[in-house]
Each structure stands twice: as structure tokens, then as C-alpha cells.
């Protein structure tokens, strides 16, 4: 029982970073109706810039964190300009394919920065695990959860209390109508990319500070985790992305404990399969979709 609770809480803590990755994918999907396959690579390039600073100059962790955030945001803006802005609205497939190409390009740049192998990444702070009764929590995991909760809270406020947030939500529902109402859709897209890249940068940083290392597979890894978590929750749904991320974390933690490390990823895929068979739109996706359909039918 103690194991079960411990694993569940660990899963939720680590899953909170999956949730942030999924939020990044889902916001762009909502605004653009396109999958940004370069998102994981965007985070990877930012992380590599930070690692490069660490390896070569041994700078302070705070500077590394800031460098990662700055370079993910810049890279996100680059991705938007190159393969989402330039490609016509209705050519969704073309921009998805080009975002895949950019994924490769960004990975290539990262690997040139630090040639292929594993590099050490500095942990945020060196403290012992926190003991709560019979439970033991890693300080990094707690930080991860706290940061993720803060990010989600800030996002919620941004989406519901600001002019940009309202424009983003309007555009996610109906870009054409948003344009009629005088929303500068190009600017909303650009700002959305900057925003999700910031969220992704935070997720990437906390994951690496926990793992204390980075490998050239980091881009692929973040892409998989984010996409699976998004699919679990339902594409385009923000609560779904959070739920999906947490669920993925918990399932991974349990399967790793009870079945062994080699079943961790497999169980995630089985979970995705099961959800997609039982609820084809994802956990929250269907409801959102049918609500939207209803909206279109009524109006």
C-alpha cells in the first residue's frame, strides 16, 4: 500500500512535466489546427544551449535556466515563422510535414553544438530527499510539481483574464470568426508559439535537472511524451492535456515498479491504445468536440 501511494505521488509529480509538454502541443493544435512536430526539438535545442553553457563555462544554474527559456522561445518563434506563418492557412499537411523537417534541422544544430553522446546536466540544488512519514520524495520531483502547478495557474489566468488569452481562445474555436472580429490572427499565432515554447522550456529544464543528464534522444523523448499525453486527454483540450500528462506519469511509475523498467514505455502505449479504443477522441476531447459541433450547428 505504501508502495502504491508512493508510486502514485511520484507519478503525479513526474507526470506534471508531461502535462506541460502536452499543453504545448495542444495549444498550438487548438490555435492552428495543426500538429507542431518541431516542439520537442525546440525544447531540445534550448536545453542543448543550456548544457553547452554548463559544459564549457560552468555558469550558475539560474543563468542556465534563463538561457534555456530564452533559446526555446527564440526557436519557437523561428519555427512559427518558417513553417507555420509562411505556409497557407489551409495547407495543414504541408506545415506539419515541414515542422517534421524542422525537427531534424533543430536536432542537427543541437548535435553540432555538443556532438553525440550523453552530457551531464546540473541539478537545481543538492538536497536530500524529503521525508513525510513513511514516504520519501525527491526534491527535484517536488520542484517539478510546484513549477508545473505555477505554470498551469499562470496559463489559466492568461487565457481567462487577458486580452491575448481571450483572442487565443476565440481563435482556437474559429479562426475565421476571430479574424472577422478584428483579431490579428498572425500575432496571436506568433505569441502562442512564444508562449508554448516558454512552457516547454520550463518542462524541459525541470526534467533535465531531475535526470541530471541529457542525451541526443531528448527531442524524440519529449515529443513522444507530449504527444501521448495530449492524445490521452484529447487533442486541443487543455484540461485533457493536464489529465493525460498526470495519467501517463502515474501509469509509468506503477508499471516501472511492478513490472520493471522495460515495461515502462510499453505500458504507456497500451494505455494510449486502450483510451483510443474506448474513447476515440481522448478523455476530454470528445466533449469539447461535440460542444464545438453543437456550436456550429446552432449558429
Amino acid at each position, binding site marked *: 500500500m505504501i508502495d502504491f501511494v508512493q508510486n502514485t505521488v511520484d507519478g503525479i509529480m513526474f507526470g506534471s512535466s508531461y502535462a506541460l509538454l502536452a499543453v504545448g502541443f495542444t495549444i498550438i493544435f487548438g490555435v492552428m489546427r495543426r500538429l507542431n512536430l518541431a516542439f520537442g526539438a525546440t525544447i531540445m535545442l534550448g536545453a542543448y544551449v543550456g548544457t553547452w553553457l554548463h559544459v564549457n563555462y560552468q555558469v550558475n544554474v539560474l543563468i542556465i535556466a534563463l538561457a534555456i527559456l530564452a533559446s526555446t522561445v527564440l526557436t519557437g518563434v523561428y519555427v512559427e515563422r518558417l513553417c507555420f506563418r509562411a505556409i497557407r492557412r489551409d495547407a495543414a499537411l504541408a506545415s506539419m510535414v515541414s515542422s517534421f523537417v524542422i525537427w531534424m534541422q533543430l536536432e542537427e544544430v543541437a548535435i553540432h553544438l555538443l556532438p553525440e553522446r550523453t552530457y551531464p546536466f546540473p541539478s537545481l540544488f543538492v538536497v536530500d530527499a524529503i521525508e513525510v512519514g513513511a514516504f520519501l520524495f525527491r526534491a527535484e520531483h517536488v520542484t517539478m510539481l510546484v513549477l508545473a502547478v505555477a505554470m498551469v495557474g499562470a496559463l489559466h489566468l492568461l487565457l481567462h483574464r487577458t486580452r491575448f488569452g481571450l483572442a487565443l*481562445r476565440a481563435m482556437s*474555436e*474559429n479562426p475565421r470568426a476571430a479574424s472577422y*472580429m478584428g483579431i490579428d490572427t498572425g500575432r496571436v499565432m506568433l505569441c502562442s508559439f512564444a508562449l508554448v515554447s516558454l512552457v516547454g522550456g520550463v518542462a524541459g529544464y525541470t526534467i533535465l535537472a531531475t535526470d541530471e543528464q541529457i542525451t541526443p534522444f531528448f527531442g524524440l523523448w519529449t515529443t513522444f511524451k507530449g504527444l501521448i499525453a495530449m492524445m490521452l486527454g484529447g487533442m486541443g483540450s487543455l484540461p485533457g492535456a493536464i489529465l493525460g500528462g498526470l495519467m501517463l506519469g502515474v501509469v509509468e511509475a506503477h508499471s516501472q515498479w511492478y513490472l520493471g523498467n522495460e515495461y515502462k514505455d510499453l505500458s504507456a502505449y497500451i494505455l494510449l491504445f486502450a483510451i483510443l479504443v474506448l474513447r476515440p477522441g481522448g478523455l476530454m476531447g470528445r466533449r469539447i468536440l461535440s460542444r464545438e459541433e453543437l456550436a456550429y450547428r446552432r449558429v
Partner: protein
Amino acid sequence: MTPVLEVRGLRVSYGGLRAVDGVSLEVRHGEIVSIIGMNGAGKSSILNAISGIVPPDEGEILFDGESIGGLATHAIVARGIVQVPEGRMIFGTLSVEENLRVGAHGRGGFLLRERTRADFGRLFPTLADKLDRPAAGLSGGEAQVLALARGLAAEPRVLLLDEPSLGLAPKLAADVFDLIQRLREQGLTILMVEQNVGRTLALADRAYVLESGRIALQGSASELLSDSRLVANYLGMSSTSSCNTT
């Protein structure tokens, strides 16, 4: 007096197919001007060209004598030309109030002005106590009223209305026409597209009759009402078509 809005020699096409073929029209301050025509005549294309939604092939669009051709839609809205698009396009996942605030976005705002709020309560009493509801739950008539109110929240100088009575039961359509009448009394300039020819001409000052992308007839509403060509082609047709749509 120079017109507030003037369109000269407008041509619009979609993938080589011409939808609007050399249309010129003007709207003066405080007028209601209507564009009448059958399905596919090119009415929406004209409004969309004015709003900067579709790029024209040729022609000039002047607002207060200044060219607005080539401006992005958000820049055109910011100048004061706001369209209430065909099919209403309200945001079903947002609340009624948030829909209005998206309208206010067009004039650079975020919250509704007190005046807008007061106008809203007076002009749209049916919606005033549903501000917190998701817009998806509104009836067709309420949705159309919300679409109008959202457009007004942008505080337009010229309002473009694309088939505001489309799909509404006759009673609701009559309410919408009443509302448009009241907007005019407040000094708003309106360019509207309608298929309900009888009602529109009763409301409008002037009208243009569009056929296959060209203007076939134009004149004051009263002149057109007594024009036998219009009566034969449209008034007869519109009554049957309104039976089909409602």
C-alpha cells in the same frame, strides 16, 4: 457629400472563377444600403473584399476617401468597418459576455465599456441576463442577436451585415429587422446583404441588385420596389425561397 464607403470596379475571383466582376457602389453617412441577389451572385464576396478577408483582383475600396485596399482585416476593423458574417459565427465555447469582449477586441479593448453595457441591456434585453452562459446554448434567434451585439461592441462606424435573417423564423427575422432599424436611428451606417427582398427594401434607403457578380439594377428602395423587373425576378422568388429556408 463624399461617401463614407466607396467601392470602385471591384473584381474578385476564386481560383480563376470570377465571383465579382466590376462592381462599384457607395454608402453615405447614416444610410442603410442593401445588396440583393440570388445565391452565388457574389454578395458575400463583396463584403469580404471590403473587410479584407478575400483579396480583390482589381478595384479600389475607399473609406472616408482613403484607400483601405490591401489592409489586413484587423486593421480595417480598427478603422471602424466591422462585419457580422454570414452564418453568425459566434464562439460557442465562450460565454455570451466573452463573445462581446471579442467584439471589443476589435477597437483595442478588453473589457466592455459601461456605455456598451448599457446599450446592450437596452437593445438586447433577451441576452442581458444570459451573459454568463456559454453561447453554444443560445437559440438561433439569440445567436443572431449576439452576433449583431458582438459586432457593435467593436464600436463600428460602418456595419456590414451578411444575411442577418438567414435561417430565422419569420417572427425572429422581423425582430432582427427592427433591431437594424433602431441601429440606424442611432446614426450607424449600414451595408447589408439580404435575400429577404421585401423586408430589406422596406428598411433600406438604397439598394443594388447583383446578378452573377455584376450590378444589374440600382436605385432608391422605393424606385426599386416599383420596378417591374425586380418585382418579377426577386419578390416572387424571395417569397418561395423564404418558404424553403424557414
